[in-house]
């Protein structure tokens, strides 16, 4: 019996019970959909994160106190560790220590809100250097200007605010020169940033920038930094610079055992590696869950095929009487199972691609995210391939049962 007629026969048998066929493949549809969706969304998300990471600039190096975080509690520890101080910056900026270092901008995170008259707005308030935002992210005030190096030296109580902060606190009235309250201190607004939205890790619209010295001494009463942004010279080897930084800090912190480091260095490369690892682990995890759904779907297919074999005992007997061999019957039921799972896989893939395209459309249109939609060819091949394989595996047992039916018993049926 040739393949096209076998397929035709199978399709007819499946169509006769189309509602049952549809319900049967639901497990496969969901499983394949989950796999394709996870892979394609994972890819999209990873591309998005990586593109943001790349916009930091490859010669930016971030220095953080504490240990390289491997679990959530480590991140909290990072904020509380006081290992990075002014003397570290002084040491790093010495050319004999890190020859290719161009700049070091310390940052201090000020928790709390910005107040003006009766309104309070929860923004990200950062103590920073005057030039960091401009030089690293190419964002400059639209009105007024950044605070200066002198402001840093004199612990000036000044602030540069983002457009959203300005809008929330001042509405349409003029903000420049007004005083806002942060951590109980009155700070004068000297600059307002343009509306830029998300720039790498920051939402520039939602930010308040003050001299890091003011943040340290006047607002928080601390003498350490939460983060130091370092920039290598344009042509420098970033890995080498990172190594020099590490060596310098170990020396100034008297650390001989690298596992006891009280700081860690983040470069674009390490972020990319971390992001890839995280998304990979997540993908594997979700694919594993989806595989369970596929297993259940496969068992459903097997079950319904067994029912179908019993229902069609007579047909099997008749076909054998007319000259069908066991192999012919086996093929017919195998093909039926594979058509079922293949259809399920195809449907699941189509739904997943539609959702994935929709997500990327929404992300691009409403959230202005660089979330490109790419047809996840690998995921499609995987989804359809896996579902077909499931048809092969779970269809085999019922098909063998069908093939083994004795034609006389089968014809006697009814």
């Amino acid at each position, binding site marked *: 019996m040739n393949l096209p007629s076998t397929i035709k026969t199978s399709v007819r048998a499946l169509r*006769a019970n189309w509602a049952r066929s549809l319900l049967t493949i639901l497990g496969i549809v969901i499983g394949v959909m989950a796999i394709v969706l996870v892979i394609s969304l994972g890819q999209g998300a990873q591309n998005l994160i990586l593109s943001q990471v790349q916009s930091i600039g490859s010669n930016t190096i971030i220095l953080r106190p504490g240990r390289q975080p491997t679990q959530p509690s480590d991140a909290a520890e990072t904020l509380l560790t006081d290992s990075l101080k002014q003397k570290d910056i002084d040491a790093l900026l010495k050319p004999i220590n890190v020859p290719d270092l161009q700049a070091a901008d310390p940052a201090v995170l000020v928790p709390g809100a910005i107040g003006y008259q009766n309104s309070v707005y929860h923004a990200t308030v950062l103590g920073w250097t005057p030039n960091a935002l401009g030089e690293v992210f190419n964002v400059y005030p639209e009105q007024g200007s950044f605070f200066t190096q002198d402001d840093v030296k004199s612990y000036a109580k000044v602030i540069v605010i983002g457009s959203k902060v300005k809008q929330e606190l001042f509405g349409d009235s003029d903000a420049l020169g007004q005083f806002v309250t942060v951590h109980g201190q009155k700070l004068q607004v000297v600059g307002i940033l343009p509306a830029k939205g998300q720039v790498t890790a920051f939402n520039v619209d939602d930010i308040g920038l003050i001299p890091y010295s003011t943040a340290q001494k006047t607002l928080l009463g601390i003498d350490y930094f939460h983060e130091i942004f370092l920039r290598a010279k344009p042509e420098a080897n970033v890995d080498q610079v990172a190594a020099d930084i590490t060596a310098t800090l170990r020396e100034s912190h008297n650390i001989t055992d690298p596992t006891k480091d009280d700081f860690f260095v983040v470069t674009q490369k390490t972020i990319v590696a971390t992001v890839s690892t995280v998304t990979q682990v997540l993908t594997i995890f979700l694919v594993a869950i989806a595989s369970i759904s596929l297993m259940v779907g496969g068992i459903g297919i097997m079950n319904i095929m067994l029912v179908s074999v019993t229902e069609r005992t007579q047909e099997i007997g008749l076909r054998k009487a007319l000259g069908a061999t066991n192999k012919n019957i086996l093929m017919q039921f195998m093909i039926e199972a594979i058509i079922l799972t293949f259809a399920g896989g195809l449907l699941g893939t189509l739904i997943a691609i539609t959702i994935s395209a929709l997500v990327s459309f929404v992300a691009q249109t409403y959230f202005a995210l660089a979330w490109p939609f790419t047809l996840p060819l690998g995921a499609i091949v995987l989804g359809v391939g896996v579902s077909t394989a499931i048809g092969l595996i779970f269809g085999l047992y019922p098909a063998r049962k069908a093939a083994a039916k004795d034609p006389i018993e089968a014809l006697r049926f009814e």
Partner: protein
Amino acid sequence: MALIQLENITKSYESEGTLTPVLHGISFSIQEGEFVSIMGPSGSGKSTLLHILGLLDRQTTGSYLFNSQDTSMLDDPARARIRNKYIGFVFQAFHLLKRTTVLENVMLPLYYSDVPKKEYAQKAKIALEHVELSHRLDHLPSQLSGGERQRVAIARALVNDPKVIFADEPTGNLDSKTGATVMNTIEKLHHQGKTIIVITHETAAADYANRIITITDGLISSDKNVTAPHTHYAK
């Protein structure tokens, strides 16, 4: 050379350890072109015998030569091939596929044959002409009368131009008038040279045969040639 040659065929069914002997030693031969009617009381082993003759089942002991070939030497695929090529079956319960048109029901044996696909429809149409159902090609079995259904089954049995047609009570589900049409159709095939072996309870149907074998309790109790009253199907 006889088309069918049986030597001392016995058959016992075995289920759950108990052996049920059904046929106790049947011997006869049938020449090509004969019209044989097998009769006998219910449970005497007629269907059992027909299943062995039709290569749907194997005898317990004894030898069966079909078309000069020792059937005990044949494996399952070889038996399937012979069923497909040389044998046509007609059953009491018709056994047509539901949801499948008359034409495609008749084409069914061709799927398992060497006939090129492009000849399927042509051959099926010719077979349906023989049973005078050319006007029902696209009907479903459920849209046909009982007699018409059995004639479709006959068309299916002869579509691959077999040597012999086995029919197990082909008129059992039909009233006597419809049964007569079906028997006329079968007789027509006999006149075209087919060997016919029909199991029947009804003497009216047996009257078409030119030889009647009677089986009682798994043994042949009589085997006689008769002059069929219906020598001309066109009566």
